[in-house]
């Protein structure tokens, strides 16, 4: 299976999906009006990956901003990993960005996945 790399734009995040390391990284900003279209190939990639996942999957969310439309898509990403073993979501936030931290905690409750919180440096 091949990796997936997409460079971001002012409205969309950088995406790097590595099936060998089991590392899915989203960084930058995500505020497209129609994130469903943008994320469609990513959700498809994840389905393919989940057929033969590696022993541990790390989902790195390094977003400094995302709109509410994106939050629905993120939820879809997390839901795909429900009941899968050894999945950790690494949720990054700026030290002073309490809202982003809280948002991570809400996703943790909604998805029931294992979350680890990290600060951007």
């Amino acid at each position, binding site marked *: 299976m091949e990796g997936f790399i997409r460079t971001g734009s*002012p*409205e969309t995040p950088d995406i790097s999906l590595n099936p060998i390391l089991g590392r899915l990284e989203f960084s930058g900003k995500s505020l497209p009006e129609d994130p469903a279209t943008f994320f469609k190939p990513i959700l498809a990639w994840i389905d393919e990956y989940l057929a033969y996942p590696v022993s541990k999957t790390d989902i790195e969310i390094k977003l400094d*901003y995302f*709109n*509410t439309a994106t939050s*629905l898509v993120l*939820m879809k990403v997390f839901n795909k990993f429900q009941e899968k073993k050894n999945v950790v979501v690494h949720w990054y936030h700026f030290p*002073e960005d309490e*809202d982003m931290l809280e948002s991570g905690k809400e996703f943790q409750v*909604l998805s029931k996945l294992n979350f680890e919180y990290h600060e951007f440096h």
Partner: protein
Amino acid sequence: MKSLNSIYELHKKLEDDQIIIAYEGELNPQITNSVLTLTEKNLDKKIPTTQARRKAFHIAVECLQNISTHSEKIEKYPNSIFLIGQEGDEFFVSSGNVINSDKVDSLQRRLDQINNLDKEGLKQLHMQVIKESLLKQESSNAGLGLISIARKSGKKIGYQFVEMDSENSFFSFQASFLKEPETV
């Protein structure tokens, strides 16, 4: 010809009101992106604290995308207005757009529902709406933007409907927040 004085007067009015950005015109996805780019630049220049900048930008995104995604095109009134400014100890994000009058009731109900909730209530509603939207597989996010705006603002959302003709109403919207966050 329009009086040249009126240009100066409009400029002076915007300066006096400490407007950070003002846009009047059509809002489609492409224009929305341009307005947001400009908004971000102006916020960087005119709002000193990162936290307030983040809040203003977040509210601006949801506000503009609400207009450009949810409002169907009304040929007769294609234009919307969008402003960010400050008054006293608050920043505010305001918008105005024309909607079909038959949507007024449901929008008003949703706004009242949001305005009647406290911080915890809004959090619960936010999570509930995310869950429901995923179950229904619907692309529309059913008021998630408004809930999110209310959560960022920490204040009641201001709104007003003005009947323009038998079919259309003007929807004015305003979300404000304190320049300095309250210390708990």
